[in-house]
Every structure is written in C-alpha cells, then in structure tokens.
C-alpha cells in the first residue's frame, strides 16, 4: 500500500520536478557553453577520444612493425608524419594506439575508484555509527600516504602490470570519492523530502539509491571529470617507472620512458608522448573546471 502511495506521489511530483530539473540543467548548459576554456577542454577530450576509438582506421602503419633502416626519423619524414622511434616504428601510429591504452585504463581506474568510493561514502553516511567510524578511519589511513607513494606500495604487493597499476591507482583515489559522497549523504539525509519519503515507508535501501544517490550525481560527475586527468598522469607515471604497462603493450608513459635515452639525438620521440599526456590531462581538467562552475549554483 505504502509503495503504491509513494509511487503515486512520485508521479504527481515528477512533472514539476522534471521541469525544474530541465531549467536548472539548461541554465548549467548555457553557462558551460559560454565558457571558452570549458569548450576547449571538451574539444580536446572529444578529439583525443575519437583518435583512440578510431586508432585502427587512422593509424597509417602497424604500431609494432619494426623498420631498423628508419630509426629515429624526424617528424615530416615522407611516410612518417611524426617520425619514428628507436626501433623505426611509426610514432603517429604508436601515439594513436597508445591513446587507447592510456585513456581506457585511465577511465576504467576512475570508474572503479568512483564506484568503490561511492559505496563506502554511502555506507558511512547512511548507516553511520561504527560503519561510519570504520570507513572514515580507513580513509584517514589511506590519506596518510602521499598519493603516488601509496600506488607504489600497492604495486609492490601486487606486482607490476597494467591491471595491477589500474587497481593500485583506483584504491588510492577511493578516499576522494568516499568523502564527497559521505558529505552529500549527510547533507541530503537532513532534508525534509528524505524525511517525508521515510515517513511514507520507503525502505532505507531504496531511499539511498533513489533520493540520496541522485543528489550525489552532480558532485560525482564533477569529481570524476576532475579526477580523470590525475588518473591518466598517475598511470602514465607508473608505466614510466616500468611498474605499469608491460611490453609488448605500450601506453604514452612507457613510450616516454623507452625514448628517454635517445632524447639527445631525437628530442621529438620523448616530447610527443608527453605532449599527448599533457593535452589529455589539460582537456579533462578544463572540462572538469567548466562543469564545476556550471553545476555549482553558488557560482551563478
């Protein structure tokens, strides 16, 4: 009975809520479009994302084909727009395929951290008591480690590798999401509409999934966008140290690492993978800044 009543209340409230949601959303979209830097960030992310998805179509060569006759060719060499690396492999093709690894792993690690962090934050904020204490003390402990050091320590345990690197970087970022979601849950829990829903007999699980988690979405979207850049850098950093992606797979970090010893004779081999990392991180950072400004009503 109560369930029917609640769903009825939901449907009667929905049009007004949806209309208000639309106007807030269109206001945010208008603010976002007006920001030049946010649009530039979006363009960078779209271009790099498209390059990663279309890598097999766009790459002029097989990224792994070795051509020792053309080692360390300079950019604009006929047939090799960005030159070749120390094994004569086409740099443009390797950068395009490297984008797939770097972006996919970066996004996957972010999704993993956001999911795990949200569950922790939701449990801590909603259940409270000893669960909150346990989660928050664990978060305090994780945060007592310098960001990159903890990833290194986890790699020391799990061993180097692509998946282990992703897991390590995701674990390091759990506190970031856990704290955001917990703070939002604590704020939303006090609101009258949550109390009203509870009084109507909505189960705690449904309450947390529908009302509370929905309110966490905006801060979570901003957090995820701002965090992706850091994830890509951290994973590239692990690969640069030889602790992330292992050969024959390559990402931008491992490309940069292997080219270091040739930077005296072929600076472009070291410069280009790093430039790719920088542009990807810059894109996500500008996009995140723009989303935060657009979605935060206090800034309007």
């Amino acid at each position: 009975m109560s369930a029917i009543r609640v769903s009825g209340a939901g449907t009667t409230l929905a049009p007004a809520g949806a209309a208000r949601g639309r106007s807030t959303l269109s206001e945010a979209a208008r603010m976002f479009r007006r920001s030049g830097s946010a649009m530039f960030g979006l363009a960078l992310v779209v271009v790099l994302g498209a390059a990663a998805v279309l890598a097999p179509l766009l790459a002029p060569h097989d990224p792994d084909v070795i051509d020792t006759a053309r080692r360390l060719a300079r950019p604009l060499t006929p047939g090799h727009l960005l030159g070749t690396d120390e094994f004569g492999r086409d740099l443009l093709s390797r950068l395009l395929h490297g984008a797939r690894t770097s972006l996919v792993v970066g996004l996957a690690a972010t999704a993993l951290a956001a999911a795990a962090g949200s569950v922790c934050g939701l449990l801590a904020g909603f259940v409270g008591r000893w669960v909150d204490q346990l989660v928050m003390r664990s978060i305090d402990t994780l945060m007592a480690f310098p960001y990159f050091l903890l990833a290194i320590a986890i790699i020391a345990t799990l061993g180097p590798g692509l998946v282990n690197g992703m897991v390590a970087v995701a674990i390091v970022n759990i506190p970031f999401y856990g704290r955001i979601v917990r703070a939002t849950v604590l704020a939303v829990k006090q609101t009258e509409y949550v109390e009203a829903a509870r009084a109507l007999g909505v189960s705690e699980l449904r309450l947390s999934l529908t009302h509370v988690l929905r309110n966490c979405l905006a801060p979570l979207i901003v957090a995820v966008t701002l965090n992706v850049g850091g994830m890509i850098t951290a994973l590239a950093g692990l690969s640069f140290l030889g602790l992330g992606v292992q050969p024959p797979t390559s990402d931008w970090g491992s490309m940069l690492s292997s080219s270091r010893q040739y930077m005296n004779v072929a600076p472009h081999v070291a410069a280009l993978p790093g430039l790719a990392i920088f542009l990807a991180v810059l894109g996500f950072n500008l996009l995140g800044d723009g989303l935060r400004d657009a979605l935060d009503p206090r800034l309007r």
Partner: protein
Amino acid sequence: MAAVGGAGLQGYLVRRILLALPVLVGVSLLVFGVMRLAPGDPAAIMLGAQATREDVERLRRDLGLDRPVAVQYAQWMGRVLRGDLGRSIPLGREVLPEVLLRFKATVVLTAGALVIAIAVGLTAGIVSATRQYSWLDKLSMAVAVTGVSLPVFWTGIMLILVFALSLRWFPSAGMVSPYGGGLDDLLWHLALPALTLGTASAAAVARLTRSSVLEIIRQDYVRAARAKGLAERAVVARHVLKNALNPILTVIGVQVGYLLGGAILTETVFSWPGLGSMMVRAIQARDYPLVQGGVLLIATTFVLVNLVVDLLYAVFDPRIRYE
C-alpha cells in the same frame, strides 16, 4: 587571556597528537601488509630462483613468517620501534641507515620544490585575486591550469632537453659534482629537479590562494579597512592574507604529500639519489624490507607534516583551539 589561549592551545595539541596515533597504527598495518599480502612465499621471492629449500626455510624463520600473522605484526612493530627495519638481501646491508641516507636527498628535493611552490604560487595567487579579471589574472590562471596538467616526468625531460642538453646551464643528473662541491654546487644540481617537482604544486597553490583571497576580499571588514583609508597593500597584508592563511596552509600540507610522492618520478628522471629512485629499484628486485622501510619513513613524515599544519591552524586561528 594569554594563559587561557595557551591552555586552549595545549589541549588542542594533545587532542590532535592523540588523533594522529590511530592513523600511524593504520599506516604501520598497511606497510606490514605490503609483504604479507604479496602473492606467493615472500622468502622464496626475495631469495630468487637459485635459492635452496634450506635457504628459504632459514629466511622464513628469520623473517618470522612461520608464526601467526598477529605475532608477526607485533614482532615487526617492536623491531621498528627500536629502529630495526630489517636487512636488505640484495644490498646485504641494514635497511635503516640506507633509507635515512636516501631520505636526506629526498627531503632536500622536496624542500626545494616546496620553496618554489610557495613563493611562485602565493605571489601569483595574490596578484591574480587583487587584480581580478585583469590580463595578469587571466594569464596567471591560464599558466596555472597548464601547470597542474603537466606530468612531472615530462616537465623534467623537457627541462633537461632545453636547459641541460641544449643551453648547458644546469646538469642533467645527480645531486653533487663527481669531485664534490659546496652549497652552490648542490643548488646548481637542485635547480631543475626542484623546478620540475614544484611547478604543478605552484600552480595548485596559486589557484587556491586566488580563490581564498577573493572570498576574504569581499568581506565587510575588508571594505571597512579600505574605508578608513588604509593603503591597499596594508589591507591585503593585515586583513586579507591573515584570514586567507588557513585554507592556503591546508593546500600546502596536501602539496607536501604530492611532492613526496612526485619525488619518486622526479628522482628517476634526474637520477637524484633519493628514496624514490631507490624504492623503484627495490620493487623490481622484490626487496620487501627496503620497500617497507621507505614507505614507512615517507608516510610517517607526511603524517607528522599534517600534524604540524593542523597545529599551525590553531596558532593562526585561535577559534580552532576551542572546537
């Protein structure tokens, strides 16, 4: 009044130190777990494929791996508190002197980067906020968003390419010249690594300083200070900065963690003889005691730095002592 403030500060100090203890225990548990949670037998991994069964058994006994986990942790913790971090098998040396020696180099690098981050970041942030929407503000914020997006290892390589290999102004590797040198030699070697490590932090400090100062600058008491005819410089120094200091301190505390972690990458790029470059080699060699020693030392330092930052809050803002 002063006595009450002093007592408040002491109480706060004790409470804050007590709060740091469980975190330190958590840190020690995680560091202990580095070896225990590794897949396979740590003793066999540490000794390598050539080790005999007897060697592995002996090491297992030496490391206490044949005892219950709780006992192992208690014994390990007891040794750590006495300053015994174990022995590195590949190096054949005690871990503590090794990590302390390396730690000095990491502290020098981190301190150099922090000086750059604070000097550049604070100046840029204050200038930006006091001239909001001017071309200087837009330029410094554009540089700041670029700075936070720069991967530290790439910045290092680019600086080496330009200032070491091309212009030959600075050395590309090491901490001191082969035949030794004084402070000027150290600073000469430190310039590029510290700039590399400090750039992203300077950008982060600049962004936060700008927003903190902007928030304070709109307050009524700042308007009142201006209205009574105080020079703008004095308004900023006495009324704005003093009140914007705590959020800035927070970000500087966070940046110390970023710098200690980022030092691992910077040290690798510049062959700086610090803890970071040592730990990367130790992980590849599965030298667990060395990894544990390095992680424990850096994490404990970070906890203590955060403790000092929290105590400074209370010094700068007496309201915090009574919360």
